């Protein structure tokens, strides 16, 4: 808005900067202050509810309220001729639900020319294009009073008839921007007898536009339904000064003052005669029910009282009429200029924003409840914290990926975005791997060879019944060296057991013991190799495995398939783990009851065994644990041997067994007896022999 223009309506004594601050603190945000010749232009950033501030008069009302100054309204006296407008024009509203009021004036014998400098300056200062004196006047009045007007060339309105109706099927209209618009029922148009001549409340038609040849003018000032204007403008992807105001709610009672103001100005600038009377069709009276503003409500909600005199003064200054003042509060009549205010709470907001939010001193509310976190949230945080201790850095990637990429890592049906920004972001991720690989590549291209990354986030898919599903997944990626070459150590490439160890440590940190973990689909872990279908194709078939644990879900770990890696131009092995976190035991419920710390010493014994190469370590440990000896505390392998000293098809494996009793010190001969039982059991079940 122009400061000079504002000053026509209200006296402003403060500096533009002060004014901007004060307006901003009362909810009318001034974003920019730009000097322009002798004027200052304030750039407002209005919230969508404040249609009333889309004009100089409206902003002036705010200013007048702020500084308790009188507001000078626009007074117009129209000099009319004897000819009665009503008799020369037929106006009919056929869709009163979409157009509550339609006012028109006729001006005859005007001379269209370009506007005088003062008018051009005003419009150009606000960034509006100047066209001719008539069109410019309608824009001027729009900027001044906030009501959109339209001027038609009366000669182009066939049979001097205006119908305000919905568009018929198959109709179209070339609007003044030269674009042909296909209309459909539901769109409100201004039509003459034969065709639409304007898109109501949005843009006029090119044919009936004011031209240099125009002599007689039909001036329109109407009130259109906000939702209808918005729908039509949206579906035609149009946005104009007029539609902007109508869709936010114009003032139905501004129609007449605006049309009078415009008619007078046109006559002043273009001459001509204004026919007598405003043709005013107002089939659907917009009336507003008064509301009660309770004093107690204000205090209860805001936490402190607002002086009565302030409430009354502010409401009046903002055009709200106080009908009645009682013990309870005020009965307030709502002006048609403020359709956004319709409830008590809206009035409270009007008052408090003028009173000043800074006048309410801060307090903290009391609280009798507690503060809860869901088990899933506790778990996720624990996972993240423990992963960084294991050296993994957290990544966060977009939910959107390329459709073709989604198929590589999941058989699930992806959720497609109907209005995606690009084809690379057209579906929602069904796996976290594409994002992790992108992060891996990003860093590799910047010279990093070794890294450990993870992401914990949602994947999205449609289930068999097409329902959209979201599921939390934890995915890890590791590649390069497990240990870098330093002065202290040689480098060592990351291998499967680094990955497995990380997972064992991680799961232990959230309460899953190593013993609960199960690798492969069977207990012995070997069964899995016989079902090649159970590992997805993007994994290396020989270096990948499923794993699970009691209460947890089937997860995957292993090396990415080298073929897939080469598609991404990755030459080094990439290890990944995928753990869905759909179901998880409540961490706080994990059995953490104190167990007595053993007071008697433990005894460790080693055995070196020779077994068939097909026998796994897991076979050996589970066989040992089958022994009826409760004193076995733990079993751990410490050596593997394959080679010339053993017969073909055999391998050597050495394990330590730890024996301990909780009620006594174990005797040497007791342990010897246990150990013999174990050896016999291994020989019986697995054909294991002692290596000498």
């Amino acid at each position, binding site marked *: 808005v122009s400061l000079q223009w504002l000053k026509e309506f209200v006296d402003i004594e403060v500096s533009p900067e002060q004014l901007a601050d004060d307006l901003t603190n009362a*909810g009318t945000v001034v974003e920019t202050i730009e000097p322009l010749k002798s004027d200052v232009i304030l750039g407002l950033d209005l919230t969508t509810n*404040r249609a009333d501030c889309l004009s100089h008069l409206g902003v002036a009302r705010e200013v007048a309220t702020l500084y308790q100054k009188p507001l000078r309204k626009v007074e117009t006296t129209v000099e009319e001729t004897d000819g009665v407008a009503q008799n020369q024009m037929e106006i009919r509203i056929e869709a009163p639900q979409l157009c509550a009021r339609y006012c028109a004036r006729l001006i005859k014998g005007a001379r269209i020319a370009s506007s005088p400098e003062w008018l051009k300056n005003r419009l150009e200062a606000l960034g509006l294009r100047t066209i001719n004196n008539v069109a410019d006047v309608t824009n001027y009045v729009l900027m001044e009073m906030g009501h959109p007007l339209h001027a038609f060339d009366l000669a182009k309105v066939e049979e001097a008839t205006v119908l305000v109706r919905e568009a018929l099927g198959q109709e179209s209209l070339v609007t003044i921007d030269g674009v042909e618009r296909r209309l459909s029922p539901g769109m409100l148009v201004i039509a003459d007898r034969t065709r639409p001549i304007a898109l109501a409340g949005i843009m006029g038609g090119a044919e009936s536009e004011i031209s240099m040849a125009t002599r007689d003018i039909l001036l329109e000032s109407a009130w259109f339904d906000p939702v209808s204007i918005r729908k039509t403008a949206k579906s035609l992807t149009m946005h104009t000064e007029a539609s902007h105001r109508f869709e936010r709610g114009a003032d139905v009672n501004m129609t007449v003052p605006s049309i009078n103001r415009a008619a007078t100005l046109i006559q002043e600038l273009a001459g001509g005669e204004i026919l007598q009377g405003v043709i005013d069709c107002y089939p659907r009276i917009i009336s507003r029910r008064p509301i009660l503003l309770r004093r107690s409500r204000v205090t209860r909600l805001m936490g402190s009282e607002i002086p009565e005199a302030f409430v009354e003064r502010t409401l009046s200054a903002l055009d709200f009429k106080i009908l009645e003042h009682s013990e309870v509060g005020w009965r307030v009549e709502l002006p048609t200029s403020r359709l956004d205010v319709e409830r008590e709470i809206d009035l409270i907001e009007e008052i408090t924003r003028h009173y000043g*939010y*800074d006048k*309410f001193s801060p307090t903290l509310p009391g609280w009798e409840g507690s503060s809860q976190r869901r088990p899933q949230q506790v778990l996720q945080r624990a996972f993240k914290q423990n992963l960084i201790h294991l050296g993994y850095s957290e990544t*966060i990637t977009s*939910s959107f990926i390329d459709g073709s990429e989604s198929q590589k890592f999941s058989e699930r049906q992806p959720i497609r975005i109907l209005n995606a920004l690009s084809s690379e972001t057209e579906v929602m991720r069904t796996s976290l791997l594409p994002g992790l690989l992108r992060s891996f590549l990003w860093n590799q291209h910047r010279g990093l060879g070794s890294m450990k990354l993870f992401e914990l986030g949602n994947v999205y898919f449609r289930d068999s019944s097409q329902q959209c599903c979201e599921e939390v997944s934890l995915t890890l990626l590791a590649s390069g060296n497990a240990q870098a070459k330093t002065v202290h150590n040689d480098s060592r490439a990351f291998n499967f057991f680094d990955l497995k160890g990380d997972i064992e440590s991680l799961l232990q940190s959230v309460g899953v013991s190593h013993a609960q973990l199960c690798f492969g689909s069977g207990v012995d872990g070997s069964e899995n190799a016989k079902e090649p279908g159970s590992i997805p194709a993007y994994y290396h078939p020989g270096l990948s495995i499923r794993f699970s644990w009691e209460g947890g879900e089937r997860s995957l770990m292993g090396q990415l398939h080298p073929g897939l890696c080469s598609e991404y131009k990755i030459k080094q092995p990439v290890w990944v783990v995928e753990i869905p976190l759909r179901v998880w035991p409540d961490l706080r419920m994990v059995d953490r009851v104190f167990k007595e710390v053993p007071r008697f010493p433990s005894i460790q014994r080693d055995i070196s065994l020779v077994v068939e190469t097909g026998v796994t370590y897991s076979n050996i440990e589970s066989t040992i644990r089958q022994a009826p000896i409760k004193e076995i505390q733990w079993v751990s392998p410490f050596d593997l041997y394959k080679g010339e000293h053993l017969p073909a098809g055999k391998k050597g494996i050495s394990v330590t067994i730890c024996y301990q009793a909780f009620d006594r010190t174990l005797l040497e001969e007791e342990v010897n007896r246990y150990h013999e039982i174990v050896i016999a059991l291994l020989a019986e079940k697995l054909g294991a022999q002692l290596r000498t």
Partner: protein
Amino acid sequence: MLDEILQIQSGLSSEIGEVDSLAKLTIFRDKYLSRKRGLITLLMKELQSVPAGQRKELGQSLNLLKAKVESAIEKREKELASLALDQRLEADRIDFTLPGNRRPLGHLHPLTQVRIEIEDIFASLGYSVEDGPEIETPYYNFEALNLPEHHPARDTQDTFYVSDSLLLRTHTSPIQIRTMERQRPPLRIICPGRVYRRDNPDATHSPVFHQIEGLAVDVGITFRDFKGTLEYFLKRFFTEQTRVRFRPSYFGFTEPSAEVDISCVFCAGKGCRVCKMSGWIEVLGAGMVDPAVFAFVNYDPEEFSGFAFGLGIERFAMIKYSINNIQYFFENDLRFLEQF
């Protein structure tokens, strides 16, 4: 004989002082105490031939001398042993300036760190953490938040759709509605999560970003409580010196509404490029819950009142760490992540 004793005695301390190795100490011991040729041993033998009158006195002197020599040897032996240990240990000395045997730690994403910090501040005020689906219905994302269809305010939140009836939530406010449907007041929750707006990516926009919204509903919650809670939070998250400004604004969900600014952390409110010379940075939108929203979840607005707020985690992280481009958060460049 007495002369000999005195002579040995007087030279003793200087002589032992020159013994600087265990080998020399053996020689020293042999010199005086060797069973065959030791000077003191010989004197002891000589004592037999001394006249009985002098023998007692001389014998005492000689014994005293022997004890002195023995204790000098013992003392010197300890000194030499300790010296030898010192030397051996000194030889172990290493180059302390070499780097440690480091175990590289991973890094929590700055967005997670900020989220945890905010969650913990609100947890200390009694707030619980709630979550909800990212794929939402227009009802929960808009209607129940008092943003009816065809409301101009919807323009500011350009939305991704996955079907006619499902969209990607544009804020985490739907969680507030879902929680209120499930639970009666009193209620204090924060709702962190991923949200979507159909903006082309640039330095300050990302179609995918993260929010934390909060809601408190109880009997007698006031606008002053709303201000106090947010001031407490902002001062804890930024600094004690942070000044907080509440400006009237408009959101469908709240009324009265406010945009909340903090004094610019880059220039301490003096005015700089980041705050566009205003001295203030906008950090969140908030307000008292609109009675219309309570109507959607069957809370009686005459009985209960409350406040709600929403903030962008990326924005908070950018302000806190002076990050100038939102895209850094999604590139996952380790040179970026390792700074946090």
